């Protein structure tokens, strides 16, 4: 038994997040029983990735505050105020916390025609599935599962997202949800191919699909090496998350809320944050592919956390840009969205692929 614990602790201690700033604190810990093991586990890189960054803590904070940031920024850009009255001296920061509380205590209404088991399962199931790509996304050097095929796995999981939205719409069995679901399916086909081609272009450019290696190979960030692929990827991300110019599936004006009209209570709350979760993952992916992941000037005293900090800053920058689109652009029609996805974006993605090939060829020569 003791041997097992020792081998376990050896594995844990060999892969620790090193933070010089808190080391004096860690030296004191052995005097307190149990706490030492707990801290050692917390600072074990895979667990740190799941629990703190990019996993639970940072992800949760993103989901908690980015809807507010989006509403506030768009409100200010459009001469409105945005969320304001809850804690008005801070500009309504805890708006989403209040909304979540309200959703938690609200009745989840399942209407008569809905497919009851799927109707109740899908919001929770999709929320879990949407979290999975975070396992493969590294923040700096910290990653939960390190594999050379991380980008492909993330892409595959991202492509799985719309299926769950389709499931939601199908289980709702309502005409608005039906139209929204069909639109979602159309848009899915429109953005997915250029989006994947843009990601593949970057994999070809770096010659690897390991995010950690990718970060080390971006002495010049990918967005400068291949701006066309970056543009396609960004537009694809906007389409995938249903940001304003492509808010075709859940268009408030004509379909109420698209695939999730029928939901209420905490089920709706989960679906409401789904698109923000998706946006968070896609901007993290964009950070890895085009902005050099967690690479940046090392901040003294933070050690491994320096990479984490840069990763978070870059991701939030991409997220904010993604959300600012809402303030500027009106919505495309479905046919315009499809046209954009199938012709200019596909062409641009192919051009991006060609640029990558040329860059690789130049490097080889």
């Amino acid at each position, binding site marked *: 038994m003791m041997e097992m614990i020792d081998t376990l602790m050896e594995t844990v201690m060999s892969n620790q997040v090193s933070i010089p700033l808190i080391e004096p604190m860690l030296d004191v810990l052995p005097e307190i029983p149990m706490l030492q093991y707990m801290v050692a586990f917390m600072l074990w890189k895979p667990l740190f990735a799941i629990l703190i960054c990019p996993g639970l803590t940072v992800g949760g904070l993103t989901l908690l505050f980015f809807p507010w940031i989006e509403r506030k*920024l*768009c409100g*200010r*850009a*459009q*001469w*409105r*105020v945005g969320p*304001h009255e809850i804690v*008005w001296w801070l500009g309504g920061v805890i708006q989403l916390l209040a909304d979540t509380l309200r959703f938690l205590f609200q009745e989840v209404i399942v209407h008569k025609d809905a497919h009851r088991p799927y109707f109740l399962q899908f919001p929770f199931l999709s929320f879990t599935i949407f979290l999975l790509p975070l396992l493969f996304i590294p923040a700096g050097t910290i990653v939960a599962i390190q594999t050379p095929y991380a980008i492909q796995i993330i892409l595959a999981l991202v492509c799985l997202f719309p299926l769950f939205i389709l499931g939601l719409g199908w289980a709702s069995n309502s005409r608005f949800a039906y139209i929204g679901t069909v639109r979602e399916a159309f848009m899915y086909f429109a953005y997915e191919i250029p989006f994947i081609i843009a990601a593949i272009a970057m994999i070809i450019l770096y010659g690897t699909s390991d995010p950690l290696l990718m970060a080390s190979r971006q002495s010049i960030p990918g967005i400068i090496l291949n701006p066309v692929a970056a543009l396609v990827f960004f537009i694809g991300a906007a389409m995938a998350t249903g940001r304003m110019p492509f808010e075709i599936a859940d268009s408030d004006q004509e379909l109420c809320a698209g695939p999730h009209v029928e939901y209420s209570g905490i089920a709706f709350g989960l679906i409401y944050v789904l698109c923000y979760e998706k946006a968070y993952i896609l901007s993290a992916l964009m950070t890895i592919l085009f902005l050099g992941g967690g690479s940046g000037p090392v901040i003294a005293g933070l050690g491994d956390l320096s990479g984490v900090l840069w990763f978070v800053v870059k991701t939030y920058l991409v997220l904010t840009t993604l959300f*600012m689109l809402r*303030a*500027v*652009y009106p919505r495309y029609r479905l046919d315009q969205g499809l046209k954009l996805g199938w012709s200019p974006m596909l062409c641009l993605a192919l051009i991006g692929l060609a640029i990558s090939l040329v860059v690789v060829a130049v490097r080889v020569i």
Partner: protein
Amino acid sequence: MKSMKKVVGPEYNLSEKIKTNVYAVGVAMQESVYPHTMTVFYPRERKKMPDNYRGFILFDPDKCISCFNCSFVCPANAIRMKEAPNKRYYPTVDYGRCIFCHFCIDSCSGGALKATKIHDVAYKDMDEMFTPTEEMIELPEIIREDKKYVEYEIEEDDLHLKRTKGEDYLFVEVPPPIQIPMVSQCIDRANCIGCRVCEEMCESGAISSSVENGMLRMKIDTDKCTGCGLCVKECSMQILMLKKLERK
């Protein structure tokens, strides 16, 4: 039948498209950092109203001569005169009818009615909106939460908000109107039919009657007359008239 004309949107080339898009995003960024929001956060700050704002009406009974002018002029029939314990008639306002034209204040010869900048008065029901004289005399109780007041300013053809710390004053001190002392006079004594309506109407007891040699004799005391003009309005023969008081 005329052929239908197809509406075509303006066409832009690529460079123009990029330019307009960049401009739009730039404006959005600029506005999100330094917005030109026009919203006034009402309970915590107030819009500064001009001094001649037509709001809640206050009343000073000492200056009132009970001339009924306010109630006669009121286009919405909101003002009714009610008899006070001291046998004088004072105005009451029904805010359910009042259209805040403030004709009553303009017509008040003694300056007894006064305008304020109060515009946020709440009532529970329609009956409560009838405001008796007593409630018009006292300043209404206001819960002030505002720490700032807001003014709109035009700078370079653009409207801006200007916030200033401090409370905006709601009760405006207006100089009293220039009073022309008037007095009631009979211009055609021969036509008086002696109905004594003027005597009954007079609030200040300036008109008195006496019987001399079987003849009714009316007398107007110029010292007591306030110049309210009620007798002039009520005289059935229309032989009474308001004239400027000539000081001796």
